């Protein structure tokens, strides 16, 4: 599937001689399309997710959600719920435990706040002997409330006379809660626009969306003395452990979080949801295991979301298509008391070279549950707006959209000032345009018609920065011949289990079949979040280096054997595999790990690596060029994507099988974001109206056409010991704008307010006078 690789433009300062980079000849498993090693457990139903764990004597919790968007809880009456047979306990603000001081400082944890700030906020929890009884009992709780004025949509909250959603004004400069300042300028945007031969102005309105991982947020907690074990469906077990410990006011060492299999996350499971500490609390009181899960409606109303973003863009360029100014301003939905804002004008700052630039973010607080990271948070919307606006600019300039992008290539990251290790965008665009047949697109737009089906092709650049964070690698060679790889990080379906086995096998000099991988347990070595596409790029190099360390120790021990089994040999004469060390050319000279360890007087050999994720001298990016072919049925407004082409650069690809699945998944998420998905807020009631999987649309098998994914399999040597980057999020960033641009090419119409579901498309077509 990989394309033949034309030489990627490499920055002259690329440290290709980086001593930590690994020669390809040592890679036997890395780079191979190994089927995922957890596949069999998943296809046979044997994989036990947090939702599946059951313990003897287990009881069940259901959370009651607020049904007003703003106000005060005056009184909660538990009596009718408690009277229902099977109900064991009811919690609310009337009887919640006193909040302990936070062990690590910060604001104290509030179990049930009397102040309601959004529809869906926790009001109470019932614990009962069955889930059905708990579900029934929450409906028997009486809640008296004093409603307050509210505002639930971003546009309404921006109006001058809007009620205030929280304690501070609705529209605020979010400052720099994540390091990067929300407001950024360089050069002189006004002068850049004046100097331009052509300028365009465009506004895009992108909807709020819900992660909807298939496995709900669910927690099973069970105590043993002072310690609680928590089976939790999370993207960051260490974060969940600390969150639960803080809520309970106990040291984090007393909390163990386990997430062996996780049924998807997409960002929603980065933060710990309230069901986790509630399960632990109730399990302590009742002295029996408690499982609490969010309902699908609660997943929509109280488990974070991608906030709505309103974009305003102005671009200017010379007649030759050289950018003279970019002005990208964004208003994103926020929530009372929540810091989060969507950095949805972020990639505009550095993806293309442009001397005059402003990128500004405003947070607009509304009475909705707090927004949070959802697959490529910020980058996804930033790329949509920027890549659509560039297409509009190219059309205004009468320049090929590919040429426009290639003429403005950035070799330096304008914000950090560091050079990109390489910027493969121009190459990827060339490769992709050949694969899709770019010259076959409608010229002029709207000119390729087959009855009611109008056809078009569009392109966009996909981009996601490389993030890495501290990770420990641990590889343990056991006396029984087994090799254990351990990490507290999780596998969300991304392929972590598999690529770690591959990396450890190559580091040790053995095969993945010899390796057992243990993940998702806070008693295992430190790993970062499975988010920001950083887990693989942090843990895999750490495990690889730990395996090299283990191998070195093993070989030293073998060469040093008192009986002289390998006397006169060098390290390169020895092969490790199937639980033994063997002479490469003389199979008779062999020793099992057990024997070797016994002779050494130890029970295991442990290889370690502490991956520090140092500040690197360069910027590393995940690049992609995306091309969509669409048909727009001008009779019905239905948009289809029969063909999609993606060409990527993610550095070394560890496993083509799982990599391709990640990229395809991201592309389909992009398709879904632009054609289907939107969470609808009823501004009059302050409630989401489609909080279920019937009315919240996600793609089905029928929505998916051909998706052709290829990549440059070139290690990006300076990034880490493996020259790898990441795959989880870059795929979503280009697909949505490529499809929107293809709709323009098919119809000549700019649609700027996704999702482009048939009624919206049809109205735009009719407004433009287009009929079948």
């Amino acid at each position, binding site marked *: 599937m990989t394309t033949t690789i034309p030489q990627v433009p490499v920055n002259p300062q690329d440290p290709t001689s980086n001593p930590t980079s690994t020669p390809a000849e040592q890679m036997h498993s890395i780079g191979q399309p190994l089927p995922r090693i957890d596949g069999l457990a998943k296809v046979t139903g044997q994989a036990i997710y947090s939702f599946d764990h059951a313990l003897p004597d287990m009881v069940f919790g259901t959370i009651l959600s607020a049904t007003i968007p703003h106000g005060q809880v005056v009184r909660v009456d538990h009596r009718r719920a408690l009277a229902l047979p099977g109900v064991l306990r009811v919690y609310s603000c009337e009887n919640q435990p006193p909040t302990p001081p936070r062990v690590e400082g910060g604001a104290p944890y509030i179990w049930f706040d009397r102040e309601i700030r959004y529809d869906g906020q926790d009001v109470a929890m019932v614990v009962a002997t069955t889930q*059905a009884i708990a579900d029934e009992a929450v409906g028997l709780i009486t809640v008296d409330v004093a409603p307050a004025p509210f505002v639930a949509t971003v546009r309404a909250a921006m109006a001058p006379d809007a009620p205030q959603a929280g304690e501070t004004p609705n529209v605020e400069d979010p400052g720099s809660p994540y390091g990067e300042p929300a407001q950024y300028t360089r050069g002189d945007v006004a002068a850049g626009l004046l100097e331009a031969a052509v300028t365009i102005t465009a506004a895009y309105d992108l909807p709020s969306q819900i992660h909807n*991982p298939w496995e709900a947020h669910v927690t099973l907690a069970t105590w043993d003395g002072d310690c609680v074990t928590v089976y939790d469906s999370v993207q960051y077990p260490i974060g969940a452990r600390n969150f639960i410990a803080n809520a309970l006011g106990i040291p984090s060492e007393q909390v163990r979080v386990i997430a062996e299999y996780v049924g998807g996350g997409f960002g929603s499971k980065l933060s710990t949801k309230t069901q986790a500490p509630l399960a632990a609390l109730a399990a302590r009181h009742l002295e029996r295991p408690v499982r609490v899960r969010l309902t699908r409606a609660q997943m929509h109303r109280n488990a974070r979301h991608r906030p709505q973003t309103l974009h305003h863009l102005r671009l200017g360029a010379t007649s030759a298509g050289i950018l003279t100014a970019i002005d990208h301003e964004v208003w994103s939905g926020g929530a009372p008391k929540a810091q989060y804002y969507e950095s949805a004008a972020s990639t505009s700052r550095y993806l293309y070279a442009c001397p005059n630039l402003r990128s500004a973010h405003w947070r607009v607080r509304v009475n909705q549950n707090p927004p949070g990271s959802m697959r490529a948070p910020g980058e996804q919307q930033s790329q949509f707006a920027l890549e659509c606006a560039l297409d509009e600019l190219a059309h205004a300039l009468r320049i090929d959209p590919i040429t426009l992008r290639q003429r403005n290539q950035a070799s330096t990251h304008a914000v950090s000032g560091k050079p990109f290790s390489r910027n493969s965008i121009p190459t990827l665009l060339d490769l992709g345009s050949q694969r899709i047949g770019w010259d076959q697109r409608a010229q002029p737009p709207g000119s390729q018609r087959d009855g009611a089906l109008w056809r078009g092709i569009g392109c966009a650049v996909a981009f996601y920065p490389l993030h890495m964070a501290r990770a420990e690698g641990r590889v343990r060679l056991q006396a029984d011949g087994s090799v254990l790889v351990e990490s507290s990080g999780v596998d969300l379906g991304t392929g972590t289990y598999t690529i770690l086995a591959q990396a450890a096998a190559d580091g040790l000099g053995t095969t993945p079949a010899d390796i057992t991988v243990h993940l998702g347990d806070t008693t295992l070595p430190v790993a970062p979040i499975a988010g920001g596409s950083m887990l693989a790029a942090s843990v895999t190099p750490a495990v690889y280096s730990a395996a090299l360390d283990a191998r070195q120790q093993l070989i030293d021990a073998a060469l040093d054997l008192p009986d002289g089994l390998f006397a006169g040999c060098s390290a390169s004469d020895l092969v490790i595999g199937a639980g033994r060390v063997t002479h490469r050319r003389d199979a008779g000279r062999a020793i099992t790990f057990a024997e070797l360890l016994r002779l050494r007087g130890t029970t295991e050999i442990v290889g370690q690596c502490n991956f520090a994720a140092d500040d690197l001298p360069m910027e590393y990016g995940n690049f992609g060029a995306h091309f969509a072919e669409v048909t727009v049925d001008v009779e019905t407004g239905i948009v289809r994507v029969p063909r999609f082409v993606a060409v990527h650069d993610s550095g070394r690809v560890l496993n083509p099988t799982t990599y391709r699945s990640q990229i395809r998944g991201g592309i389909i998420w992009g398709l879904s974001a632009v054609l289907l998905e939107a969470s609808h807020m009823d501004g009059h009631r302050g409630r989401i109206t489609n909080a279920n*999987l019937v009315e919240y649309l996600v793609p089905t098998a029928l929505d998916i056409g051909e998706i052709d994914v290829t990549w440059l399999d070139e290690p990006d040597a300076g990034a880490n010991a493996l020259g790898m980057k990441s795959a989880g999020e870059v795929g979503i960033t280009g697909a949505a704008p490529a499809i929107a641009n293809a709709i323009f090419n098919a119809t000549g119409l700019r649609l700027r307010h996704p999702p482009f579901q048939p009624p919206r498309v049809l109205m735009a077509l009719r407004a433009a006078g287009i009929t079948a």
Partner: protein
Amino acid sequence: MSQVSEVPESGRSGSTPVPPTLTVPIQLRVNGQIHTIQVEPRTTLVDALRTHLGMTGTKLVCGQGACGACTVLLDGERVTACIILAIMCDGREVKTIEGLALPDGTPHPLQAAFVRHDALQCGFCTPGQIMSAVAFLRDHPEPTIDEIRAGMAGNLCRCAAYIGIREAVADAAKQMRASTATSGAATLAQDAGEMS
């Protein structure tokens, strides 16, 4: 429904007194094995499988019959077990993901094909996809890709492994045809042997 009685729910609770609940005895044949359980009339089939029988291979996602994650075969037909009451299945035959592999553990051709084609990521929709495909392939032994897309459209995959899924279903169909052909040929040969 055979009888209704006031009986305590069976053995689910230790330290706390068990409340009396209206339950009904039903008999389910799951993967060939007969189970007699007491369920409330409101208990869904997916709940009976997961909670009463501890068979958690069948997943629960939307609870509204919208996603197909809970698909099992009821008397051979695919159903979404989240919107079927357990009492409606009294005396009927249920097939779940746990019963698909051969007794010696050899995976069903669809299970093997799902792994080979990486037709899953998180795996949470996967048991439902596979059970759905079992019934689909029985009715469409030689499906085109478009037939697979339509025939599997009731099983959503949030991770979006759709391309792997349709490739796996197509490949499994081929494998199953080949093995039917072989066993068919073997039966013919055997018959021929007996006749001669």
